[in-house]
């Protein structure tokens, strides 16, 4: 599924060069549920951006579903992001002044899905994250947890090969965090591959494997013996208007 070989990311700030990733090798198999942990500045986000094809490595090879995407062009990366990757951000990154359902439709718009099908699939995705009653709400009319669930619906609606999340609970209270983790667990149970970044050990405990980062290198890689089960019940929040 994911194969990284000798990935380096070097940022040049004038004369000073920062190696955010110092040569990372990582394999993530299909249907894995992985969390990446590490102190601030250890290269977690740099790693996720490369995994999510938002950025290209300075050096190294990145095989996604068997094809090397490390040297792809901007537009090729757009297509890969659109087809294979669902990305969830810490800050939600929803379009403001745009209804939840339209936000979820957006990736399908660029995939060329006809508008009727877009709407049905977007509504299904929102229902699956418990937001069937909020489909016509705009982001500012939703709580942080609800906004993140819209973002998750947007990430999964294209049925991507892999769902990536960079500190998805970073802006959420513990209750909303648990709700979000419950959704990820359920997505994992239905066969999705998920990689998420967190600096909270509690959150990492919901996953099945933890990769530790330090100074741009993988410091440790462990299986979680007994992943904690997120208990939050996703209450269906009302019915669609």
């Amino acid at each position, binding site marked *: 599924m994911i194969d990284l070989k000798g990935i380096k990311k070097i940022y040049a700030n004038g004369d000073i060069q920062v190696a955010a990733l110092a040569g990372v090798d990582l394999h993530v198999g299909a249907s894995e549920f992985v969390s990446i942990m590490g102190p601030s500045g250890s290269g977690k986000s740099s790693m996720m951006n490369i995994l999510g094809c938002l950025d290209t490595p300075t050096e190294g090879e990145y095989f996604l579903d068997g094809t090397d995407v490390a040297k792809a062009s901007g537009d090729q990366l757009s297509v890969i*992001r659109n087809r294979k990757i669902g990305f969830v951000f810490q800050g939600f990154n929803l379009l403001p002044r745009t209804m939840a359902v339209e936000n979820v439709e957006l990736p399908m718009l660029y995939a060329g899905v006809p508008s009727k099908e877009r709407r049905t699939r977007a509504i299904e995705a929102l229902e699956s994250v418990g937001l069937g009653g909020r489909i016509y709400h705009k982001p500012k009319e939703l709580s942080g947890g609800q906004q993140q669930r819209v973002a998750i619906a947007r990430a999964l609606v294209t049925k991507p090969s892999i769902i990536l999340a960079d500190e998805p609970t970073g802006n959420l209270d513990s209750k909303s965090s648990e709700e979000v983790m419950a959704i990820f667990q359920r997505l994992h149970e239905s066969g999705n591959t998920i990689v998420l970044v967190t600096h909270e050990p509690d959150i990492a405990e919901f996953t099945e494997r933890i990769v530790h980062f330090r100074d741009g290198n993988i410091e440790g890689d462990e299986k979680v013996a007994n992943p904690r089960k997120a208990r939050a019940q996703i209450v269906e929040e009302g019915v669609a208007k």
Partner: protein
Amino acid sequence: MNFLESIRVSLRALRANKLRSALTMLGMIIGVAAVIAMVGIGNGATASITSQIQGLGSNLLTISSGQSNSGGVRGGMGSSDTLKMTDVDKIQIGTAVKAVAPVANTNGQVVFGSGNTSTTIMGTTQDYQEIKNVTMATGRFITTDDVDKAARVAVLGPTVVTDLFGDANASVIGKVIKINNVPFQVIGVTTSTGSTGFMSSDDMITAPISTIQQRLLGKKTVRNILVSATSADQMQAAQNQITAELERAHNIQAGKNDDFNIQNQADMLQTMTGVTQTLTMLLGGIAGISLLVGGIGIMNIMLVSVTERTREIGIRKAIGAKGLDIMMQFLIEAIVLSILGGGIGIVLGFGGSTLAGKALKMSTSISPTSVLVAFGFSAAIGIIFGVFPARKAASMDPIDALRYE
């Protein structure tokens, strides 16, 4: 993403920012409205001047006292009274010249009972009627007999009738009015030509030139001699013929300056329409500059909009938008703004020029060309000034765009 979807995305973005969209369009609206209105008013002015000059009479040549234009320094038209009644007979009626009439005019205070008005008194001969296409509403025009006898008869314009008798339909034939205290009998009323303002043929009294010279002017002055050519093609021939005849009558040696001056209606028309066309172009040009400013306004706002929506661009790219998708979105936004602005501008310009026409009492004409040009120009401005911001948006790196605060 197909083109239709791009349009839909752009329209949604414009609707999401109604105020900004409206303000952006404002420059375009004003620019296009100004072009349409200015050109419309200009065309109207040209048309009205053309019809006024044509209304002066058909194929008209006007001979005045004074030096001709070719003499360099000009003695001022009619400053020396070099035209005489005898000159009229020197001009031969023939293949080129159809009719000749001298005119001597003055301003007079006209009184009838308690009615009182000040108007132009035009002394002339019978042929004036043919030259100026004067038609009678009632009664008759002055005749050669009236001129020979210096009869105190007067033909009134409809405005004079209203001013003097208080009623346009008053029965006035046979009534005796006083012009500068000289009694005149009314013999006819001309039909309205609709002309207004200075030297309007509606606000005028026509009388035999002999009577005016003797009773009102006290001297045998001839202000102008009006000549109508047999056709437009004969204007130049008529002018040459008259020049030769009057030079002989006035004993002007070859190479010397003439003491008279012949004005050609066609020349006048050309000069006047030339002036108004220049004015129209000038006004249109100024309005065109405001159109350009409107276009720059669109570019300005689009650039601001691109910066302001950097995050949106980042989000769209992160979930799969290609450079072209983003480019199309912003380009279409710019084009929609300018075309919509242009459309509203055309409507407003149309209304504006119609209103201005009403206020100025003249007809305005919106030419389809100016509408097409304004519309095409606004679309072009949308594309030209939209491309730069759109390319800027399209070339953004998703990571940088998402990081933008």
